[in-house]
């Protein structure tokens, strides 16, 4: 399952707001999402892909604006994302947190983020005692 270039572009705008990152970092996270979808089990990938679709295309349902989330004004998008995160509907809320969790793994893998937090490299490669 893939996240096409348009879908990546749109979700990157949303992720930039979720994580407070510049758009170029958010684009890298969208690329990560695409890569993750290709490696995840089919059921999980379908769920995540549905989550990406829903977060992108449901502003009309949640804030009454018939535009994709990427085209909302920053203030409206903030209100829209808050509706997801604080929804009383468990399915909506968890869909948002699932997408956030997967995207966070891409965010946490960013060298710029890791350098900012001084947490060292994502991967450590050390020889074992028997090596």
């Amino acid at each position, binding site marked *: 399952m893939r996240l096409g270039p348009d879908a990546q572009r749109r979700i990157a705008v949303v992720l930039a707001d979720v994580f407070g990152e510049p758009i170029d970092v958010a684009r890298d996270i969208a690329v990560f999402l695409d890569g993750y979808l290709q490696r995840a089990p089919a059921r999980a990938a379908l769920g995540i892909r549905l989550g990406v679709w829903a977060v992108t295309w449901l502003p009309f349902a949640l804030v009454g604006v018939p535009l994709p989330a990427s085209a909302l004004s920053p203030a409206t998008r903030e209100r829209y994302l808050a509706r997801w*995160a604080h929804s009383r509907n468990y399915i909506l809320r968890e869909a948002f947190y699932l997408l956030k969790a997967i995207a966070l793994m891409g965010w946490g893998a960013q060298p710029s983020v890791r350098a900012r937090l001084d947490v060292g490299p994502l991967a450590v490669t050390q020889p074992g005692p028997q090596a």
Partner: protein
Amino acid sequence: MTRTNDIDSADFVVVGSGAAGASAARVLAEAGRDVIVLEEGPEVRQEDRGLGAVESFLRLFRDRGTQVAMGRSVIPVLQARCVGGTTVVNGAIVWRLPEKAYERAFGAIGARDAIPLAALEERMDRIERDLSVGPAPERLLGGNGTLMKRGSESLGWAGHPIRRNVLDCQGSGRCMEACPTKRKQSMEVTYLPRAAKHGARILAEHEVRTIDMSAARAVGVTGVRGDGSPFRIAAKHGVVLAASAIQSPCILRRSGIGPREHVGQHFRLHPATAVAGVYRDPVRIWEGATQSFEVDHFRDEGFKMEVTGLPVELAGVRLPGMGQAFQRAMAEYPRMAVWGVQIRAEAEGSVSPANGRSDLRYTPTPADMEIFRRGARRLAEMHFAAGALRVYPGVHGGPDVIESPDDLGQLDELPLDPRCWSIISSHLFSTCRMGKDDRAGVVGFDGAVHGTRGLWVLDASALPTNLGVNPQHTIMAVATLLAERLV
């Protein structure tokens, strides 16, 4: 990887290479039996180790880390799928089975004579020697563990450095990504090589689908390799199922073996949740042993608290705020300590095979949620006792943040709906539980499946109930003891 012929054979076929399978294989192979160990997952190569959470999930975990139990809420169930099983990706915690837990599990079903505590303790002594078990030294407590120590001491709660199966730990904080320095004494670096030294064949990427039976006797297994090709292996003496509390009942169900009212039922967990605290000084949670200190003061109340190694790429999921608020919260990650509470839940769920995967059903009971609420409150209290500036409970419908110990009372009102909580589990039990006959359980006190010959279940699925302590040690001791009786 060794490749089997289409029909190979051994005295014993051991299904699963984790704590139970490796222990049984070691015993059987050292006794001179011809053993084949079948593992569904891949071998763990040096280049698979210490790659961060994402790659670890994708390479080493079942369903690539996406396995969940469905119920009133969705609960991630973390389980490895690789040679060495979950011992490869766990926190290296080794807990001797306490007498009270023994009584609850084995005493309550009348198994004191068949599985004496003294016999388990003898096996535990040996396992501890073999796996270099010892308490985490002060230098490995890290900021996370040091703060929990400080908090528990300040409150007078019983706590101690965690006893771990690690030899010369380097404190890389990567236990759950497969130890990058191979210091963790997990099965793929200990008992499996020892079994292999005595002739056991360890076959990765061999997924057993069914047990082959002839006149109620297990005579072999059938399955598929990682490349999709089928295999069949004959067992001259029998089959030892040690594929985990999820896979073992699924194999039995697919094979039509065992009492249906018990196989895959009674699914017990130690569900867990976490509470984060932010401190004035750096904590640097990623340094030191991944899990170094625990507080078992409240074990008789049904919960136990331990430090949790949460990498930055997972830490922000339940932190409140977006945009700049998220950035401010995550900027505190280096000063954040994360502690978990795991409960001995009374809920029972179920496991069944479904379209090539496993269908897990589980919902904590209201009483379980009450324990979670008490545990989260105690964790927050301990954070403040250790000097936390603020605490993030991470429960929907509760306060986003607690800024003062004076506000801890708010946590007594946390909702009890599991859908409001972020719950996870990795300790799984009892889906082929022991019982004196097939009205009480799936296997007898010797691990043999009731009504069959040559078929034993020796993993956590055979344990009569959840233990209330980390189970690896008990799983290994029970598997060792019962495997000794097969030789």
